[in-house]
Each structure stands twice: as C-alpha cells, then as structure tokens.
C-alpha cells in the first residue's frame, strides 16, 4: 500500500508535551547521557540544573502513533525504517517545559516498492510561543505491508 501524496503540506493539530524530570532521567540513562544531576534529590538539585539531552526531542517529535499513524487519509503502516533525523535548537530543552508541537508533512516521494516521507515538527514554548526546536524526520515506508 502506498502513501497518499495529497497529504503533502498537511498540518496536524498541535499537541502539548510536558518535559518531566523522571522521563528525562530514564532517557539519559539508556542513551549514556546520565550525570549525577539525573539521579539527584530534587530538593538538592533543582529542575533547572538537570541537563536534558538534545535528542530527548525525539520522544515528542517522533510520536508517530499520534500523528502519521492516526491519520486515516495518509495510509501509514508499520513496515518502515527511519532514514534521517535533524534537530535545530533555538534554545535547550528544560525540565518543566510545556511544549506545543505542530507536525506537518513536508514531502512524500514514491519509489518502486517504497515511499519516502519527510515530516517536520515545529516546537514552541506554551508559555510565550517562542520557538524551541524544529525537528525533521525522514521515514521510509516499504510497500510490502507484511505488518
């Protein structure tokens, strides 16, 4: 099954994501980014001093289940691989951030037996609408929907 090229340019409804200390700790531990601050008592080390790994942005910007796979008009399925990823930061992520994430489809290119989909997520701070990060992902969907 191929993706629907008419979805290029489509913007999904924004969703919010709150950066929580424990989720950051879990992520930092598995990606080799944990520091003493991640396991510290919050009464001793305030949230502002907990480093949030830059790639933590993947946790909310690659939320395919709530975007691409929830879109009945796109035709997304799970026979896919991640082809490329970028993050451009206007400021670092912080524990306690409430972020507004707006995904949109940038491009769909069909090749024999695969579709290459590029989508971007613009992320802003819910408190002041300032830009935080822009993520761009390339996902390759294979036509043989063995999934």
């Amino acid at each position, binding site marked *: 099954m191929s993706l629907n090229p008419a979805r290029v340019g489509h913007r999904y409804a924004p969703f919010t994501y709150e950066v929580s200390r424990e*989720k950051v700790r*879990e*992520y*930092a*531990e*598995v*990606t*080799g*980014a944990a520091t003493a601050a991640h396991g510290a008592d919050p009464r001793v080390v305030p949230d502002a001093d907990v*480093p*949030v*790994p*830059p*790639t933590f942005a*993947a*946790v909310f910007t*690659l*939320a*395919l*289940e709530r975007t691409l796979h929830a879109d009945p008009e796109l035709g997304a399925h*799970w*026979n*896919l*691989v*991640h*082809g*490329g*990823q*970028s*993050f*451009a*930061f206007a*400021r*670092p*992520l912080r524990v306690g951030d409430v972020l507004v994430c707006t995904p949109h489809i940038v491009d769909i290119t069909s090749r024999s037996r695969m579709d290459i989909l590029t989508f971007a997520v613009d992320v802003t701070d819910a408190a002041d609408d300032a830009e935080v990060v822009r993520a761009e992902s390339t996902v390759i969907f*294979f036509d*043989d929907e*063995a*999934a």
Partner: protein
Amino acid sequence: MRRLEDVAIGEELPEHFSHLDQERVLRYAGASGDYNRLHWDPAFAARVSPTGGVIAHGMLSLGLLSAAVTEWAGGPEHVRSLSASFRAPCPVEATLRLGGRVLEVDAEAATATLAIWAVLADGSAVIDRKRSRAVVALDAGGRG
C-alpha cells in the same frame, strides 16, 4: 563549554563504544515510546526487517552519539543542531563505535561543525559520516 581558541579543524571526539543488547533496546523503547515490533519481536522482524532480524532504533544510535557530542560541547545548551542520515540498521547485540571530527570552525559565529558517525565492528556505517553533522557553540571569550 569549549573555548574557540582551543578547537582545531581535524580534532576528534574521544571514541565511544556502545553495546546495543536487547535489554538496552527495550529500555530505549520504554524511554522513547517507540514500541515498533522491529526492535523486539524476532518473528515480526524476520518478515519485515531489512536485516531479517531485530534492529535497534536509529534514534538510540543517534542518542548515544549525541551524548558523546554533548559531553564534548560541555552541556546540552551548547548543542545548536544535530542531523543524521541512517545508512543501515544496527542489529540488536551489535557494538557501535561512535565518533566525530571537527570539519569547520566559524570564529565569527563561535561555532564548530562536526562530522559525526556510528559504525559497526566491520567498519560499515550505521550513521553516515558524510551526511551527519553536529553544530556546537564555542566560548569566544573576550572576542564574543
């Protein structure tokens, strides 16, 4: 934070090795929310995986690589951008060698651009050094 005058083109990140066993991949699934069966279900992976077996998340490789870049940069607040091209999947139970090299130093912007990569034990690329970059802010001191 790295000082501008201390960073030279050709400088390499300290090399890191990471073993991506099934437990780490499962922990990454939980940490990231990416539960695609490709990463933990051998029967599903046998049907659809490019390697025929379970593979690690591309973002786990980039997350590990980003941690190495972040350490070099002196903290996440100095990492301006990251981009990665996932050349081939990393099979579960493989060991990745992670590296980076300064390609360019922009004295005016006080940034360094690094090529970044992740390779398997046989040298084949998981994250392609030709198309993967990190931009790191540097301390320009009195000149900034």
